[in-house]
């Protein structure tokens, strides 16, 4: 090996060692860490040692006690077993005793029964002989209450078997004899109209185990009574003179009498049934009565439909509706329809009353039947079943169906009535002279009339006692508002507001007085404003109507409440339709009455020089010709409308006027050049204008002047750089409505500001 080789290998091994050393260091550190961790754990284990030892000591001490507890427990278990066997023995004896006692009492009962049997047999014979049916029935009832099967068995064992069997057959014979006699006598009593006997025998049926037959017969008997009275009532109704005070609602009255008659019978006879037949039998008892009610009701309703010509009325109204559209206002068609509408009114009233009476009657029946079912029910399930049966019986009835049909007829007619009346009100719209000025603004009769009709119809529907019916009428009313009233107002507004010379008061007066042949445009102006006011008051009326109805209509459940509320909400949302009509009208007004006038007035601004000397300034400031004229003009315009518009519409007008004025003035300012004094004048002018318009309305319009005020401030600056007092961090409470480029544009209007300075501004 050469020395170079050796050196090489040494170097190599050194390099390896270094590598290894590196590894070792890491390993060492790892080990050191582990050691530390182990030490820590050891330490903590040591710490615990003492604690664990203490516990162990405690345990060894307790150990002997366990033995004692174990033996005690065993003893207790033995004791309990012993006691329980003892108890079992004792109670077994008691049980036996109890069985013996109950057998003895059974025996006694049977002996009693046997004795009674004898007694009954004899008694029945005697009382049948003397026609004392009550006593006989009581004996039979006693006999029926016995356990006949057991008695027969007893008879087999007993010695005097013949005796028992004799009594037995005798009583059975007597029972069937009595049954037929009671049936016969009851029928006789019914034929003879002998109420006392009817009731006498009615009471005997349950004693003979003939509950159902008794109820059936009795109810049939009562039904004939109802039929008689109802026949009489209907005859009276049909022969009632048309001049009679109640002629208009005579059929509703007849229905009322029918319902009252049935209710009275139930009232009188329910206690009787309950006493002799027990509770829970009312539904069965009422069966024939309700069937009779169906029959009579059918006849009354048929007469009502015939006499009131409901079908013909509906057809005529429908034809009128189809013929005369909302805007096809043929005078004759309107007249014809008007006649039908007038006839509909009383018929609708009668139908509503009829249904209200039925609703009352139905509630009465339901309450009575439910209470009776409740009393007769043994278990909860039974009660539910009985209540369902009551519901089904009431819903299934012909009466219920017919009244629903009648309600449907009513609703259909009510809808036609409402449509026709509303159309008529709109067609016969007349300017309302009393309302002008006093109540603020020109109005016409249509809106008042329409809302009067709607309220009347909704109230009438509510009086029918049917919430579904009321809701339907409310829904229809909402539809009508949008389809008829809104479209009529919109049609009027669409014709626009004729511009031209403006003297409303004169135009209005001449339209009212009918003299001085008003020009078309004058009349149109008045009508336009009236429509605008109508729209404004209509949306107010809707709110009032909704509130009134919501307060007036009675609801019994939260479910009904939310149903009604939901329908009312639908009605009140028709205001948004009205609002959009109003917006539309205001825009028309703006385009034809405000814009063309304000333009020239404001444009005269440019004819006044705003580069003033001190003298000119003093002279100008004294009378401020431009702004004084403008204010005078604006005042004149507003005065013209103030009388004729509702406060709400007037405020809106001031707002749009302000908008127009500021927009035009802004444009004019941009077309003018200013010096410092000119800027000062502008500032004063803007202030004067703002304070005039603000004082004209209760709404705040100052906001609309923000841009103009800021422009005046800019034009009023001493130096261009002064803007830094208003801009950026020193803005303070001021919010700039002008963009930086607009600010430069405004500043450039000042003839004395150098454009370089303006360009240099950092905005």
């Amino acid at each position: 090996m050469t020395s170079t080789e050796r050196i090489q290998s040494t170097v190599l091994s050194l390099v390896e060692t270094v590598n290894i050393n590196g590894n070792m260091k890491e390993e060492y550190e790892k080990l050191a860490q582990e050691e530390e961790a182990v030490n820590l754990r050891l330490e903590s284990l040591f710490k615990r040692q003492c604690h664990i030892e203490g516990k162990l000591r405690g345990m060894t001490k307790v150990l002997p006690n366990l033995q004692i507890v174990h033996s005690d427990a065993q003893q207790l278990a033995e004791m309990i077993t012993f006691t329980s066997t003892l108890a079992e023995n004792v109670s077994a004896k008691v049980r036996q005793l109890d069985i013996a006692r109950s057998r003895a009492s059974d025996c006694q009962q049977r002996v009693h029964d046997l004795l009674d049997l004898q007694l009954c047999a004899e008694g029945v014979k005697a009382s049948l002989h003397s026609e004392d049916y009550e006593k006989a029935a009581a004996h039979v009832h006693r006999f029926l209450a016995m356990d006949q099967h057991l008695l027969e068995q007893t008879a087999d064992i007993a010695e005097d078997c013949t005796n028992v069997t004799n009594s037995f057959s005798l009583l059975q014979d007597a029972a069937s004899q009595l049954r037929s006699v009671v049936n016969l006598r009851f029928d006789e009593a019914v034929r003879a109209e002998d109420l006392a006997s009817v009731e006498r025998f009615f009471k005997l049926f349950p004693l003979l185990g003939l509950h159902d037959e008794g109820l059936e017969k009795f109810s049939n008997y009562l039904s004939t009574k109802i039929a008689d009275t109802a026949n009489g009532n209907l005859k009276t109704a049909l022969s009632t003179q048309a001049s009679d005070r109640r002629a208009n609602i005579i059929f509703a009255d007849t229905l009322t009498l029918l319902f009252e008659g049935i209710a009275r019978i139930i009232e009188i006879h329910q206690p009787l049934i309950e006493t002799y037949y027990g509770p829970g039998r009312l539904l069965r008892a009422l069966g024939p009565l309700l069937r009779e009610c169906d029959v009579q009701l059918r006849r009354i309703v048929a007469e009502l439909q015939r006499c009131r010509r409901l079908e013909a009325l509906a057809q005529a109204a429908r034809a009128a509706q189809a013929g005369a559209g909302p805007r096809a206002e043929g005078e004759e068609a309107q007249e014809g329809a008007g006649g039908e509408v007038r006839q509909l009114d009383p018929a609708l009233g009668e139908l509503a009353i009829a249904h209200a009476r039925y609703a009352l009657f139905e509630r009465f029946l339901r309450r009575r039947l439910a209470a009776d079912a409740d009393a007769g029910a043994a278990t909860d399930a039974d009660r539910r079943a009985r209540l369902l049966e009551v519901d089904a019986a009431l819903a299934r009835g012909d009466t219920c169906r017919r009244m629903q049909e009648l309600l449907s007829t009513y609703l259909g007619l009510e809808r036609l009535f409402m449509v026709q009346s509303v159309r008529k009100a709109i067609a016969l719209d007349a300017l309302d002279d009393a309302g002008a000025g006093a109540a603020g603004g020109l109005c016409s009769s249509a809106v008042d009339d329409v809302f009067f009709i709607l309220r009347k119809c909704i109230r009438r529907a509510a009086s029918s006692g049917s919430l579904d019916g009321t809701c339907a009428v409310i829904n229809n009313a909402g539809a009508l508002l949008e389809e008829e009233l809104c479209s009529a107002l919109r049609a009027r507004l669409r014709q626009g507001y004729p511009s031209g010379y403006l003297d409303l008061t004169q135009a209005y007066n001449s339209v009212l007085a009918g003299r001085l042949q008003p020009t078309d445009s004058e009349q149109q102006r008045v009508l336009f404003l009236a429509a605008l006011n109508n729209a404004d008051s209509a949306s107010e009326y809707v709110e009032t109507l909704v509130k009134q109805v919501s307060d007036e209509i009675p609801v019994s459940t939260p479910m009904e409440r939310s149903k009604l509320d939901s329908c009312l909400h639908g009605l009140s949302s028709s205001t948004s339709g009205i609002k959009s009509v109003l917006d539309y009208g205001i825009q028309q007004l703006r385009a034809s009455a405000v814009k063309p006038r304000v333009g020239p007035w404001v444009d005269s601004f440019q004819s006044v020089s705003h580069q003033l000397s001190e003298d000119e300034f003093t002279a100008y400031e004294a009378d401020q010709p431009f702004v004084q004229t403008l204010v005078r003009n604006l005042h004149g315009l507003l005065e013209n409308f103030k009388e004729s518009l509702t406060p709400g519409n007037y405020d809106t007008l001031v707002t749009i006027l302000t908008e127009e004025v500021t927009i035009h003035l802004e444009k004019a300012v941009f077309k003018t050049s200013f010096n410092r004094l000119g800027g000062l004048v502008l500032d004063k002018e803007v202030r004067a204008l703002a304070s005039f318009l603000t004082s004209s309305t209760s709404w705040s319009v100052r906001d609309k002047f923000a841009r103009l005020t800021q422009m005046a401030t800019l034009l009023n600056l001493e130096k261009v750089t002064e803007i830094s007092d208003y801009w950026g961090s020193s803005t303070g409470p001021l919010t700039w409505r002008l963009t930086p480029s607009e600010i430069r544009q405004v500043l450039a209007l000042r003839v004395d500001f150098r454009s370089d300075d303006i360009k240099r501004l950092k905005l």
Partner: protein
Amino acid sequence: MEDYKFLFKVVLVGNAGVGKTCLVRRFTQGLFPPGQGATIGVDFMIKTVEIDNEKVKLQIWDTAGQERFRSITQSYYRSAHALILVYDISCQPTFDCLPDWLREIEEYASNKVLRVLVGNKIDREDREIPTHVGEDFAQRHSMYYLETSAKEAENVEKLFMEIAAELMEQARSKELPRYENNSPTINGRTTVIGDSNCCSRMS
């Protein structure tokens, strides 16, 4: 404060006994009440569902199918956002009546109303109207179509959820009344649309 963003009125119509009440009960209460009596007048239920993390309140009006309640039920058409027309797939007459129902809808409902045709009772074995016939009919009258079973809870949830989603889509494009979070008033209405010759809107 009511915590929903949209409120939609859904009205169910169709012949008596096709299962309108059962569909509503199944959706709102998860029940299938057997031996359901005929509905009297209108019933209404409310269920709030969530779509795209938005609370949507569905006001469901369940109407009586019988003729004598027509004058009550018709009054609900106009304000409805969606109308569900239901027939019984195992009962031809209920399908044959559909044109009559459509006529009524034309007459009383808003023309923007969402119309859905539903063939109910697909759990029944005795089907009389094949699916494609119902589908064709719906297509001809530009209605959505779905077959359901209230008894087996099939497609019921889907029916109402899809209606809610569709209505929300429409409302988002501002075609329908929108109920703001804290005020129950309506900002716009279905039936009122700007006039064609209306001048520029007020700012």
